[in-house]
């Protein structure tokens, strides 16, 4: 204990990320902090209620154990920062690698050493094994943490490290290989008595056989082409009749699409949830399951909101899943942290999907409820130490929710990447029980080369409702300017009644927003609040612009005005709003209702706290201009408004309507990216829906199609060009 305390003291005295570590509610420190509160009180000005975290005291022991002297992190962004934080805590020196555009990145600044491994494209830098091996040799790093993505599940990399005698923080090559192969992993899972999706492994001969197999498996079933893909030749059948029909159609479709009419049948998991079990295993045959994570909220198979535990699992199912996951881990002699993904149907049947042999993006929610630092455990295990916990030591304390904050536009298919410089950036760390894992800071660039994730925002509470309430507050208090972000979508998801009840599945987003995400839909009351806020901000700004300091030569005519008749445009509506000033607060009349609005009215702050009839709201005024146009982030969504005096509003009807650009004859890039291919040239005739060019951004290729039939007038891009959002690509006549 003494050793620990002196270590902590030293760290705090040195100012080693004291704030970050504590704020990020790393379980260990929370716990240590709890234990050593009185020693530290005079040094750390801190407000976290440490009682909220109940951590096993055993985890303190690690400080006395030697692991590695120097560790290289073969990754970038938030996960690199995350690993460095734990390394600092453990007294391990760190080496960061970076591409040339990342030279000023946060992970580079945080690490003890940093080496450039190549130019921006990942294939030349973060995936450049030769360069990374070179750095390992040069810096004499004893171990490598691969993070997630990049080389984290690359068995070749693991093999090369082993050959050099460098420890790979992760499982051994055998496990990576076994779990990396879909068929092999399924077989392994079956042998380890893990539930797999029931199905017929062979080819189905005829409709009768299909029905027999379907009955064996149990309805509903999915009939799919052996050679299939992209949904072609795929049918779902709920009874015998549909099975026969499905068999016929699918084989026809398969024959015409793939020239191969062989069909497979497997159980169709209706409306599944995506629930995964975190496992932790050592090199001595011990393995633990660290409870589940619910990751059902997804878009395009990418997770958006995760939580632990799941509202859906009872302790029995949880144990069954956990035990199967551990059985699988033991079957492949797994060591390190890993994740076993399951699909869970509405009757709590669960089926093995795949195993990820790395640290998952969403690992913090597990850390929050179990009190373990997974990175630290991974490092320990890699060094060869046995696990320090028994299954009985693994608790579920409270509830944790994680939102993935992305630089993307949620209004375009739930998120198309956006790029730019973070002109203002402020994490909501003043909200209690918030952890933000990020690898960027104010001034950072979100570039087209890498994943557009800004951060992982995690909130913790003694129960789900508390965690969600804090998440709402944290999202409102998050300042991100300069890039488009998905805060609006995240906030809508976590307050949606279905989500709050726990009624979710992987189809949540398309089901709840069948016509795409449109932002928060204001209730009448909320609209009045927004209008009142906008009007008061306008008046506060007007009043301030009359306050000049000093004594002017020509006296300033002081306005005695204390009431304003305004007209506020919001969407298609025009709302008369009357504001009268009453001391420091405003009395606002909207739609015949009176609202009392108070605030500090500090117009330079990025976060404005406004109290409307006793309800506190945190709003952000993103922009304003002289003509009364303003955009305000309210309840997570950005609303465009225009506030005019009544006189100006009456006259504005005489202003000319500016003709909007005819968008059917021009094609603009919907997002920043690189042009992969251009399939037309000037003079070509194109028909509506025909592909004109392909834009690649981050991990996606997007086909740009013609909005009408016509002749190509001009092509403004060529393959290989980098284009920005809104850049003109092609014009039609």
């Amino acid at each position, binding site marked *: 204990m003494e050793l620990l305390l002196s270590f902590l003291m030293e760290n705090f005295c040195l100012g080693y990320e004291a704030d970050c570590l504590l704020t990020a509610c790393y379980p260990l420190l929370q716990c240590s902090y709890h234990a050593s509160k009185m020693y530290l009180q005079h040094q750390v000005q801190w407000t976290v209620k440490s009682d909220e975290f109940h951590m096993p005291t055993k985890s303190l022991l690690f400080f006395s154990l030697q692991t590695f002297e120097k560790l290289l992190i073969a990754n970038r962004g938030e996960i690199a920062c995350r690993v460095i934080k734990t390394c600092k805590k453990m007294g391990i020196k760190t080496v960061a690698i970076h591409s040339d555009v990342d*030279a000023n990145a946060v992970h580079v600044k945080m690490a003890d050493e940093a080496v450039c491994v190549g130019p921006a494209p990942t294939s030349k830098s973060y995936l450049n094994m030769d360069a990374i091996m070179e750095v390992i040799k040069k810096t004499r790093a004893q171990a490598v943490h691969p993070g997630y993505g990049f080389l984290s599940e690359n068995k070749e990399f693991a093999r090369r490290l082993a050959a050099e005698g460098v420890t790979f923080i992760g499982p051994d090559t055998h496990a990576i290989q076994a779990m990396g192969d879909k068929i092999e992993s399924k077989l392994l899972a079956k042998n380890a008595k893990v539930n797999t999706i029931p199905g017929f492994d062979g080819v189905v001969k005829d409709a009768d056989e299909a029905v027999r197999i379907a009955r064996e498996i149990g309805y509903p079933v999915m009939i799919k082409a052996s050679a299939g893909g992209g949904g072609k030749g795929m049918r779902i059948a709920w009874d015998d009749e549909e099975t026969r029909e499905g068999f016929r159609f699918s084989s026809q479709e398969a024959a015409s699409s793939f020239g191969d009419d062989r069909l497979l049948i497997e159980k169709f998991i209706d409306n599944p949830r995506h629930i995964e079990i975190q496992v932790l295993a050592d090199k001595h045959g011990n393995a633990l399951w660290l409870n589940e994570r619910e990751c059902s909220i997804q878009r395009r198979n990418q997770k958006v909101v995760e939580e632990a535990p799941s509202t859906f699992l009872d302790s029995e199912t949880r144990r069954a899943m956990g035990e199967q996951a551990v059985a699988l881990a033991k079957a492949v002699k797994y060591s390190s942290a890993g994740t076993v993904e399951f699909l869970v149907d509405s009757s709590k049947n669960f089926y093995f999907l795949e195993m990820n042999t790395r640290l998952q993006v969403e690992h913090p929610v597990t850390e929050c409820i179990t009190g373990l630092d997974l990175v630290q455990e991974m490092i320990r295990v890699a060094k060869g130490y046995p696990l320090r916990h028994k299954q009985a030591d693994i608790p579920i304390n409270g509830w944790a929710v994680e939102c993935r904050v992305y630089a993307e536009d949620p209004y375009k298919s739930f998120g198309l990447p956006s790029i730019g410089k973070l002109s203002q950036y402020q994490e909501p760390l003043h909200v209690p029980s918030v952890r933000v894992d990020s690898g960027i800071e104010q001034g950072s660039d979100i570039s087209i080369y890498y994943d557009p994730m800004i951060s992982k925002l995690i909130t913790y509470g003694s129960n789900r409702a508390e965690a969600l309430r804090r998440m709402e507050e944290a999202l409102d208090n998050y300042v991100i300017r300069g890039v488009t972000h998905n805060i609006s979508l995240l906030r809508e998801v976590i307050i949606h009644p279905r989500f709050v009840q726990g009624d979710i599945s992987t189809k949540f987003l398309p089901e709840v927003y069948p016509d795409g995400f449109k932002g928060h839909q204001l209730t009448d009351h909320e609209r009045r609040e927004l209008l009142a806020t906008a009007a008061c901000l306008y008046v506060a700004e007007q009043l301030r612009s009359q306050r*000049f300091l000093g004594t002017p030569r020509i006296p300033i005519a002081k306005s005695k005005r204390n009431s304003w008749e305004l007209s506020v445009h919001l969407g298609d509506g025009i709302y008369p709003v009357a504001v009268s000033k009453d001391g420091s607060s405003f009395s606002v009349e909207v739609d015949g209702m009176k609202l009392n609005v108070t605030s500090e009215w*500090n117009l*330079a702050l990025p976060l404005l706290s406004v109290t409307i009839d006793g309800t506190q709201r945190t709003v952000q005024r993103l922009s304003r201009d*002289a003509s009364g146009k303003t955009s305000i982030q309210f309840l997570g969504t950005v609303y465009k408004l225009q506030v005019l005096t009544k006189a100006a509003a009456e006259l504005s009807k*005489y*202003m000319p309507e500016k003709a909007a650009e005819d968008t059917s004859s021009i094609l603009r890039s919907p997002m920043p990216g690189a042009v992969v291919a251009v399939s037309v040239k000037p003079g070509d005739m194109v028909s509506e829906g025909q592909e004109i060019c392909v834009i690649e951004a981050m991990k996606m290729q997007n086909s740009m199609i013609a909005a009408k039939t016509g002749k190509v007038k001009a092509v403004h891009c060529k393959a290989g060009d980098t284009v920005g959002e809104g850049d003109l690509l092609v014009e039609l006549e």
Partner: protein
Amino acid sequence: VLRSRPSCGGAARQSAATSPLRAAPGLSLSLTCAPFQGKLTARERILLLLDPDSFDEYDMFVEHRCSDFGMDSSKNKYPGDSVVTGRGRINGRLAYVFSQVYKHNILWEEAVHFETRTGKINLSQTLFLVRVAVVGKVMDQAAMVGAPVIGLNDSGGARIQEGVESLAGYADIFLRNVLCSGLVPQISLIMGPCAGGAVYSPALTDFTFMVKDTSYLFITGPDVVKSVTNEDVTQEQLGGAKTHTAVSGVAHRAFENDIDALLNLREFFNYLPLSNRDPAPVCECHDPSDRLVPELDTVVPMESTKAYDMLDIIRSIVDEREFFEIMPSYARNIVVGFARMNGRTVGIVGNQPKVASGCLDINSSVKGARFVRFCDAFNIPLITFVDVPGFLPGTAQEYGGIIRHGAKLLFAFAEATVPKITVITRKAYGGAYDVMSSKHLRGDANYAWPTAEVAVMGAKGAVQIIFRGKETDAEAEYVDKFANPFPAAMRGFVDDIIQPSTTRMRICHDLDVLASKSQTNPWKKHANIPL
């Protein structure tokens, strides 16, 4: 195209617009009515520009004295003829205003007839009078009192029926514009077609703003152009807002419509001192003056050939990221405009590496020089951000007289006696280094960021010249010796090498101290800037 406006504006519009303006007995409806869609009347414009109930109108009872060609018929005579003048307040501060009434003397019905008959809208060249004496009176008083003059211009040109009298009238205004220049700020907002002599008054004022799609400025309209040069050109191409803000540089900024323009003008007015006798205004400021700007530490790219946006730097340093840019679409390789530092108005000049590497050419020199001279004339401190690779070489520039025009910017910076603070963010090469408010031109505080390179030229070019024709690896040596701020700092040419994130704090502190700066140039009738 034409909006039917029965009984000239309708009751609703009248009550909205004219009632607060204390309509005089006999005031014609036509004064509240501009015949074309998309424009406000003279009085409506004043209503939006000035604080409510602050307008004191002059000369409401003056009529035109023209009696030829039927102009004396009662139908063509209205009190307050063709221009509304007076004084009022903008955010409590005094301003003198004149607002021209376009086509006031044609009744609405007549205008419609005229257009249907000829089949096109071309009323611009004739029939209109600028009541000179009325405008002159306002300007005289503005100069005496020391308050800005704002002109809302919407004038077709001389009233041909008035003959030489109207030409004399123009000259009277021109003279007053010149005499007021440097005494009080003069702002012109072009809100309709302004042709012929009417265009020179705006050209003589400090700032000319335009309204997109409804305002034009040209010496001669498209018809005359066609008859003289046989050139087919539309009004918009010849003298529209786009032409003048992006191509000719005649106008300083354009706005979407009348309302947008007037509201922006109110905001712009707050940056200006009332006269050359007043210091730059200081507004209440909520943005802390000692705010650190961490993103500036990484804003300049590692490779010195890579561009970045100077506007990012400017916005992050000034109060609340508010920057009123002047001439944003003309000579974009230099950025000029107004902002506030700890509430005090400052003029900002910055090379823009994003456009043409931020080099100085003819247009950017002239743009910068005029802005610097305005700030100097009206006691507005100058903050200069330098990243300039030099003057743009080539025949086009030399034939165009880059030497003469570049000298204007040099002249303007050298002559300026207001507080001058300079921050070298990256390149400061050659003569352009001297020009950009260098220490040698009486800069008060000259800072360099660690990324600064103060040298005669870039390493590559320098080495090629020094070792002409010889193979050498002296480039690295040159970079080592010159591509950093130390040689300049050692000689005192920069006062300090500062951490970029502290730039705002340093500038705010300097401005506080320099507020009492007093410096005068030797007495002379006037200097002889190389025009």
